[in-house]
């Protein structure tokens, strides 16, 4: 839910409400259709069934009434009329009952309708039977036959019999041919016949006694006719008349008997009164049941309708209430989901405006507002990292400036050392100069000594003859030479010592120069690193500028809420510009330092070259001096030999001459060596002065280095100040503790 977009949320809300609406509508629709169905049940089914039942009732009564009428009436025509009506009513009744059965919907109704149909069919059969009998109307017919035909016939017979009796009485005791033999018996038979016929017609055929009566009546009839036919005197007119009457009456009596036996009226009445009534009662009871069932169905339908109405309205009201509550809560929830993060973003922006970058929203919500919150968080993150980077850069800058200061200090120290070494070299050079001067004087002295040797030798050569006298002088001269040579040796050793000291100083100076060069190179490397750092700072400042611009754009988009943030963004932009300017300044300063350093390196390398030159010159001096030393030793040896030779002069003049020659050669050599020494000394003097010059240059370079170092120091101090300023500005923002 949290990570859905606002549109989806609103869509969900709308869908929920629409869903409730649809549900309400559906429930209403279904309830209404239920009500409609109930009404239809009430209207068509129940009402139809009730009407059908009423129709059945009416037809039933119509049928029964007509049946009764048909039974009651004696007129055949009327009877037929009524029975036709009853039949039609019965057919109608059957049809209605079948209709009722066809219209039955429930098994109960079907059962009752089936029962009713069976009953009605039964009733109709009974009715048909009843009507059949009613149409026959036999009892009435029998009565008619009895009254209209039999009774007059019997009366006439009675009359005839009575006439016969009178005749008999009148004629005599003997039977006359025209009278009846036994008239009393016949009369009583006639009376019995009449009474039995009346009884026959009065007794209903359903009566249990009817069979006996019928049998008795038939016996009586047979008896009567037998009795009548016994009078067979064809001549007797009465008998003839009686026989004629009897034979004429016989079909009537048979017809009467048949009619009376059938007793249609009685049967029909019986049927109508007992079976039909019972069947009608059953039918009516069934009809009542059906009506009651229909009423029950109606009542149930009404109850169901009421129930449907109440449940429907309950469900609709409940759904509407639920929808309202759910919709309200959802809208409150969604509006809270929107407003709360916005308030959080606002408070975060205010926090950021006051410089607190620690605050975060950390809202786990994926909709637009959540994205806004996340974007604000990431903005705060970016600001945090940016300010952290600025702080780091400031700290780095401070470290770099400190390193620069250290390097500058070491440079100053180094240059001072160089200066002091240079002055040491200067002193050594001066000493060298003095030594060289001493050497020069020694060499001059040596030269002079050589001259005196030469003159002595010449003198020796010239006055070989007077060697004896000159030998002593020679000896003294040789001693002087030896002394002089010894002096020279001492001078040489002194020179050698000075040269070695000079070489040592030179080596020291070379080492110092190398050290200075490497320090300078280190400084150069540091400057390059600082340049890189300043480049990085410039880049960061540019990026910060762009970021601040985008932040301003965002703040402007945020409208009134972004005003405070816009101020912060502006300040950051200014800070970035200031940083870029400071970095530019540092770069310029560093370039100056680099230039000075490179110049110092060049100068120091020049010094190193010069010192190497001095070194080589001093080595050459050393070689020359050693050469001279060897020459002086050779001289010394020669002189020692000369000394020995002088001692042996007396022994061999030629030996002396040879020795003198040798000596002459040696002296020439020594002279050449002395000249060499002189030349080398001159060279050394020139080198020394050159050293002095170079030393001066070194001093100058050292001074320049000093100046550059001071400039570097100033630059590094500016840098340190800027980094402090940067740190102060950055520290306005509260950052997570691990960042600092």
């Amino acid at each position, binding site marked *: 839910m949290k990570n859905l977009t606002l549109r989806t949320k609103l869509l969900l809300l709308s869908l929920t409400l629409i869903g409730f609406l649809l549900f309400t509508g559906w429930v209403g629709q279904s309830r209404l259709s239920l009500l409609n169905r109930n009404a239809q049940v009430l209207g068509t089914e129940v009402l139809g069934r009730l009407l059908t039942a009423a129709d059945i009732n009416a037809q039933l009564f119509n049928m029964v009434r007509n049946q009764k009428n048909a039974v009651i009436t004696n007129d055949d025509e009327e009877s037929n009329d009524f029975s036709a009506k009853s039949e039609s009513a019965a057919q109608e009744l059957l049809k209605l009952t079948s209709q009722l059965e066809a219209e039955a919907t429930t098994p109960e109704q079907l059962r009752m309708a089936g029962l009713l149909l069976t009953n009605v069919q039964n009733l109709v059969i009974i009715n048909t039977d009843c009507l059949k009998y009613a149409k026959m109307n036999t009892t009435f017919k029998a009565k008619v036959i009895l009254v209209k035909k039999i009774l007059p016939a019997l009366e006439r017979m009675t009359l005839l019999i009575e006439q016969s009796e009178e005749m008999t009485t009148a004629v005599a005791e003997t039977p006359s041919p025209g009278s009846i033999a036994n008239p009393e018996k016949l009369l009583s038979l006639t009376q019995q016949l009449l009474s039995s016929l009346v009884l026959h017609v009065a007794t209903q055929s359903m009566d249990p006694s009817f069979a006996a009566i019928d049998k008795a009546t038939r016996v009586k009839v047979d008896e009567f006719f037998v009795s009548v036919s016994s009078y067979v005197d064809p001549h007797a007119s009465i008998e003839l008349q009686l026989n004629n009457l009897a034979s004429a009456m016989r079909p009537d009596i048979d017809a009467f008997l048949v009619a009376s036996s059938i007793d249609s009226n009685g049967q029909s009445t019986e049927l109508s009164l007992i079976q039909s009534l019972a069947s009608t009662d059953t039918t009516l009871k069934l009809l009542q049941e059906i009506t009651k069932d229909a009423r029950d169905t109606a009542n149930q339908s009404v109850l169901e309708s009421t129930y449907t109405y109440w449940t429907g309205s309950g469900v609709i009201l409940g759904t509407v209430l639920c929808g309202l509550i759910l919709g309200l809560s959802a809208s409150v929830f969604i509006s809270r989901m929107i407003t709360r993060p916005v308030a959080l973003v606002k408070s975060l922006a205010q926090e950021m405006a006051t410089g607190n970058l620690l605050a975060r929203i950390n809202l786990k919500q994926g909709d637009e507002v959540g994205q806004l919150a996340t974007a604000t968080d990431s903005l705060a993150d970016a600001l945090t990292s940016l300010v952290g980077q600025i702080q780091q850069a400031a700290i780095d800058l401070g470290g770099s400036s400190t390193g620069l200061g250290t390097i500058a200090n070491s440079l100053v120290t180094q240059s001072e050392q160089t200066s002091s070494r240079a002055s040491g070299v200067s002193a050594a050079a001066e000493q060298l100069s003095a030594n060289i001067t001493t050497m020069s004087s020694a060499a001059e002295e040596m030269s002079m000594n050589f001259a005196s040797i030469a003159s002595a030798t010449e003198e020796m050569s010239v006055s070989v003859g007077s060697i004896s006298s000159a030998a002593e002088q020679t000896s003294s001269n040789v001693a002087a030479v030896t002394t002089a040579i010894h002096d020279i040796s001492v001078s040489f050793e002194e020179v050698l010592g000075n040269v070695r000291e000079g070489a040592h100083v030179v080596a020291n100076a070379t080492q110092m120069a190398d050290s200075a060069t490497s320090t300078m190179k280190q400084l150069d490397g540091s400057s390059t690193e600082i340049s890189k750092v300043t480049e990085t700072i410039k880049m960061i400042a540019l*990026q910060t500028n*762009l970021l601040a*611009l*985008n932040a*301003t*754009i*965002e703040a*402007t*988009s945020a409208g009134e809420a972004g005003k405070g943030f816009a101020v912060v963004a*502006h300040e950051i932009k200014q800070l970035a510009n200031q940083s870029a300017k400071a970095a530019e300044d540092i770069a310029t300063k560093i370039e100056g330092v680099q230039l000075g350093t490179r110049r110092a390196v060049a100068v120091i390398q020049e010094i190193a070259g010069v010192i190497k030159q001095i070194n080589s010159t001093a080595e050459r001096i050393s070689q020359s001096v050693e050469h001279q030393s060897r020459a002086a030793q050779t001289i010394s040896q020669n002189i020692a030999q000369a000394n020995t030779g002088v001692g042996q002069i007396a022994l061999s003049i030629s030996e002396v001459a040879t020795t003198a020659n040798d000596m002459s050669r040696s002296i020439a050599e020594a002279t050449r060596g002395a000249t060499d020494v002189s030349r080398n000394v001159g060279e050394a003097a020139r080198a020394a002065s050159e050293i002095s010059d170079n030393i001066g240059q070194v001093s100058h370079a050292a001074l320049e280095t000093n100046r550059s170092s001071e400039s570097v120091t100033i630059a590094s101090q500016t840098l340190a100040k800027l980094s402090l300023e940067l740190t102060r500005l950055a520290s306005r923002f509260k950052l997570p503790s691990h960042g600092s």
Partner: protein
Amino acid sequence: MLDVPTLFCTFAASGRLFGVPLIDIKEVSAETHCTPIPHAPKHVQGYVNIRGQIILALDLKRILNLPADGRVAQRLVIFKAKIGPAFGLLVDEVGEIASVRNQDIVADETNLDLESPSTSGLIRYICKLPDQLLVVLEAKNFLPIVEQELHQQSR
């Protein structure tokens, strides 16, 4: 026209200062690497991918017929999508945010006399800043100009 001081983002192209209302700008990006579009009008430099979003980059110098001074565009000023499809202007560099008031406006549509009718809708007015003049552009008319160019090209 401007009741309250309005903020404009200024940017430079061919040494001239232009500006658009800050409220119309989505962001300013240092990403100017364009993917060329074949058969596109000459105004269109290509597509630029800004954090996965594809932005149409237009060359301001070509649109305004500014002299090419050989400088490569360093910044892309991206406009908000409410003006139309997302697009950006390639500019040499982005300057300060300028606040302009009504009395600073020295010329607008009514008294601007432009030689080229194709760029007439692009310049809204000219404002006087303390040290130079600011040409305020109408961002929403850039894309129609490009479309017009496209139609002319296809014809």
